[in-house]
C-alpha cells in the first residue's frame, strides 16, 4: 500500500469514526432529556407536566425522577391521563387528567398485584363505614350536622377514613369533594368503582419498595391502643433485629427473599407478603394468616367465608405458607412450638373472656336489659375496651411474640376489665332491672344466672373464693419454691 493510499484510507476510516462519534453524541443527548439524570425518558405530553411542576411542586418531580417509573418511561400522563367518560376527568392545561390514580389505573401494568390486592381484606377496609366503629366517629365522637365538613364527620374524614379509605365523591366541577379526598386509605372506593389505593403502602411519587417494606409503612394504621401491631413488632425479637441490622436488609433488592437477598431480620412484609425461594410475592395480606383476631371472639380466617358458602384458601394452607416463611430462619420444631403457644393464648382468650362476655352482652341486648342505643351505657364501653383494645393487644401480642403486650398490656388488662368492671357492671344493671320488675326483670335474672354459671367455671372459680384444693396446693408449693429460690 502506497503512502498516499494509506493517507486516503486513514481519511476514509477517520470519516467513518467521526460518523460513529456523531451517533454517540446523539445517544448521549437523547439520554439526557431531563438534564441531570440520564436514561429518564418521558413522553412529550408528560414533558409539559414536568416542565411546569418542576417549578410549582419541585419535590414531587424530584421524587418521581428517583423512581423506577421515571427510569422505565412511565411519566405523569401514563398514570394521571383520563378519558372524557371518567367521572373525575378534568381539563388541565390542555390535557384531560384525573387526580386520583386508582388500582384500576395501576393494573394496566401491575395486573397480578391488583388481582391479589382486590381479593384481600385490605381492599375491603372501607366496609367499616356503617360499622360500630363508624358510629363512634360519626355520631358519638363526631358530628354529621352543623360541625360536619360537607355533611361528613371530621373524625371520620381525618381519622378512620385515612386508614380504611373514603368513598370518593366527585363534585360538579369534576374535582373530588374535600371531605373524601385527599385520602390514601387502603380500602378507598374510587370514582371508577375500584377499591383501594396503592399509594397507601407505596407512597407517591417515588413508589420505592424500600418504603413499602418498612414496618413504618404498615405502622401508619396498624398501631395504637386497639391494634398495636407496629409496637408489638418493635417489642419482638424480629423488630429488635430489624432496628439493629437495618443496613443489612437490602431493602431495595428485587426480588427480595428472606435467606437469599437478606437474612438479618423480617419486616411485616417479609412474613405477610414477600417472596421466599418457595413462595411468590402476594398482595393479599391474609394469605398466610390463620386466625382472624379482630372480632370479639377470634375465629379462623376462613370461617366467615365458609359460613357464607364461599370457597376460599383454607386456614391450614395459609398457616403452612407462613411456616415456609418462618422456616427460612427457624427450625421446624421451633415453628411448631410457637404455633402451639400462640393457639393456646387465643383459645384461652376466646373461652375465658371473648365468648362469655359476648354471650352476656347479646342476652342483655336481646332482653332489653341494655338499651338499643350503642355506647350509651358504661357496660358497653367496658365490653368494647375488653375485646377491641385489651383483648386484641393480648392476642396480637401472642401472634407476634411480644411478651409485654401479651401480658401487661393484654391479658392483665383484659382480666382487670372483666373482673373489676364487666362483672360488677353486669350485676348492677341486672339488679337494677330486677328491682324495677316486669319482663325485663326476668331477662336480667337469666343474665345473672348465666354470669354465675360462667364464674363457677374452673377458670373463674378463684374470683368467688372457690379455688379447688388442688389449685390451692399448687399455689402454696409455688410460693414456697419462690421463697426458697430467691431467699425471701
Amino acid at each position, binding site marked *: 500500500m502506497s503512502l498516499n493510499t*494509506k*493517507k486516503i484510507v486513514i481519511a476514509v476510516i477517520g470519516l*467513518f*469514526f467521526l460518523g*460513529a*462519534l456523531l451517533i*454517540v453524541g446523539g445517544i*448521549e443527548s437523547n439520554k*439526557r432529556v431531563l438534564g441531570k439524570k*440520564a436514561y429518564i425518558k418521558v413522553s412529550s405530553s408528560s414533558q409539559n407536566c414536568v416542565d411546569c411542576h418542576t417549578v410549582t411542586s419541585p419535590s414531587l418531580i424530584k421524587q418521581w425522577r428517583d423512581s423506577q417509573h421515571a427510569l422505565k418511561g412511565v411519566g405523569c400522563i401514563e398514570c394521571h391521563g383520563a378519558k372524557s367518560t371518567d367521572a373525575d376527568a378534568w381539563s388541565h392545561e390542555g390535557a384531560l387528567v384525573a387526580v386520583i390514580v386508582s388500582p384500576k389505573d395501576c393494573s394496566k401494568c401491575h395486573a397480578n398485584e391488583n388481582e391479589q390486592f382486590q381479593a384481600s381484606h385490605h381492599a375491603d377496609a372501607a366496609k367499616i363505614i356503617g360499622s360500630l366503629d363508624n358510629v363512634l366517629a360519626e355520631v358519638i365522637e363526631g358530628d354529621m350536622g352543623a360541625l360536619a365538613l360537607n355533611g361528613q364527620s371530621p373524625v371520620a374524614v381525618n381519622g378512620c377514613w385515612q386508614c380504611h379509605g373514603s368513598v370518593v365523591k366527585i363534585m360538579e366541577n369534576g374535582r373530588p369533594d374535600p371531605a373524601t379526598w385527599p385520602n390514601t386509605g387502603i380500602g378507598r372506593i374510587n370514582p371508577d368503582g375500584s377499591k383501594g389505593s396503592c399509594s397507601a403502602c407505596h407512597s407517591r411519587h417515588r413508589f420505592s419498595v424500600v418504603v413499602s417494606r418498612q414496618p413504618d409503612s404498615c405502622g401508619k394504621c396498624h398501631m395504637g391502643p386497639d391494634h398495636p401491631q407496629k409496637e408489638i413488632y418493635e417489642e419482638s425479637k424480629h423488630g429488635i433485629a430489624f432496628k439493629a441490622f437495618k443496613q443489612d436488609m437490602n431493602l431495595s433488592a428485587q426480588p427480595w427473599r428472606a435467606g437469599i437477598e437478606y437474612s438479618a431480620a423480617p419486616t411485616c412484609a417479609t412474613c405477610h407478603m414477600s417472596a421466599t425461594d418457595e413462595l411468590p410475592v402476594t398482595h393479599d395480606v391474609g394469605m398466610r394468616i390463620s386466625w382472624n383476631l379482630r372480632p370479639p371472639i377470634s375465629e379462623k380466617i376462613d370461617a366467615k367465608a365458609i359460613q357464607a358458602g364461599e370457597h376460599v384458601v383454607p386456614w391450614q394452607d395459609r398457616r403452612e405458607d407462613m411456616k415456609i416463611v418462618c422456616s427460612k430462619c427457624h427450625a421446624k420444631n421451633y415453628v411448631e412450638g410457637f404455633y402451639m403457644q400462640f393457639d393456646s393464648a387465643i383459645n384461652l382468650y376466646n373461652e375465658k373472656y371473648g365468648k362469655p362476655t359476648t354471650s352476656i352482652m347479646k342476652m342483655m341486648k336481646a332482653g332489653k336489659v341494655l338499651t338499643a342505643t350503642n355506647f350509651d351505657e358504661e357496660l358497653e364501653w367496658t365490653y368494647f375496651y375488653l375485646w377491641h383494645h385489651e383483648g386484641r393487644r393480648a392476642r396480637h401480642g401472642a401472634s407476634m411474640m411480644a411478651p409485654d403486650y401479651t401480658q401487661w398490656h393484654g391479658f392483665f388488662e383484659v382480666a382487670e376489665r372483666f373482673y373489676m368492671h364487666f362483672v360488677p357492671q353486669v350485676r348492677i344493671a341486672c339488679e337494677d332491672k330486677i328491682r324495677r320488675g316486669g319482663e325485663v326483670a326476668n331477662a336480667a335474672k337469666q343474665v345473672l344466672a348465666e354470669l354465675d354459671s360462667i364464674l363457677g367455671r374452673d377458670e373463674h372459680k378463684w374470683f368467688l373464693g372457690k379455688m379447688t384444693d388442688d389449685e390451692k396446693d399448687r399455689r402454696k408449693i409455688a410460693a414456697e419454691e419462690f421463697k426458697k429460690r430467691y431467699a425471701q
Partner: protein
Amino acid sequence: MSMKSMSKKSKLEKLLAWAKVRIPVDVQEMKTLTNEPVPNHLKHWWFALGGTPAILFAIQIVTGIFLLFYYVPTPEQAYQSVSKISDEVAFGWYVRSIHKWASELMIVTVMLHMSRVYFTGAYRKPRELNWMVGVVILFVTLGLGFTGYSLIYDQLSYWAAVVGTEIAASVPIVGSLAADFLRGGPEITGQTLTRMYLFHVVILPALLAGLVALHIIIVRLNGVTEFEFDEEKKLEHKTFPLFPNHFLTEAILAILILYLLTLAAIIFPAGLGEVANPLMTPEHIKPEWYFFASFRWLKLTNVYVGVVGQIIFVGVLILWPFIDKIFENKFPKAELSVWIGFIGFTFYLTLTLWEALV
C-alpha cells in the same frame, strides 16, 4: 528572505541551542535510533498485530483514567458508581463501553500476535527472552481483565471473582496463601475489592507498561525478525522506513480500532447485572470468555490435576523456545512446533467454545 523572518529563525535557533545545552540529545541521532528501516514483510497486515495491543493499552489508560474520576472501590458504592457512570455521567456509558470492548480486543490481539510470532518461529534464537517477556505480558493482560471485571461488583462479576480466587487457592503449596493475599482474607470482602482495585489501576498497569517497554527495547536491540515473502525477493529495497510508512499503517489500525470500538459501544453498550449478593449464588457462574478454556478444563478434571495441568501448560509456554530447540535438534525436519501449536490452539478454542455453548 526578509530581515524579520531571519531574526525569527535566529530566535528559534537560539531556543533550540538553549534546549540542547540543557537536554543534550542529538536530534539526528534520535531520528536514526527511532526510525530504523523495517523489513518489507512488515507491510503485511498480519505483521502489524504486535502494535495493536499497544494501541489498545493506550486507549485503556485514557478511558481508565476517566472511569477513575467516578468509580468508588467500596462494596457499598462500587456497583452504584458503575451504575452512575453508565446512566448519569456524561458519555460515561461510552467511555465504559470502550474500556470494556478494548479489554476484550486487547486479549484477542495479544493472542493473535503471539500466534503469529509462534507460527513464524519468531521466538527462536536470539529472541527467546522476548518471547518469555511476551508470555508474561499475556498473563498480566489476563490479570487486568480479571481484576477489572471484578470491580463492577454485579452478581456475575462478584461470583467470577469468587471462582477465580478459589481456583488460585487450589494451586498446590502456595495456592491458599496466594488466594488469601488476593482476597485479603479467606472470603471476598471489602478488602478484596480494594486489592483488586489496586492491582487493576496501579500494580498491573505499571507492570504492563514496563514489560511493553522492555518488549519493544528487546525488539529494537534484536531487530525485527528477518523474514522474506517470495514476492519480496525481487524487490530492490529490502526495507522500508518506519516513519512515515509503518507509522501510517499503525495509524490506520489505531483509527480502525477506535471506529470498531465505537460501533461496539453503540450496538453492545457495557451492561450491568444485578448488584452483587454474597448470599445468593447465581445459577450459572461463568468467568470472562478468555478464562472459559481454563474453567472447562477444571470442570473436566479434578481440581488438583486441573490446576497442576495448567501450571505445566504455563511453564511450557514460557520455556517454549528452549523446548522447541530440543525438538528441532532431535527431529530437524518434522516441523513439530507447527503441529504442537496447531493442536494446542485447537484445544484451547474447543474448550472455549464448549464452555460458551453449555
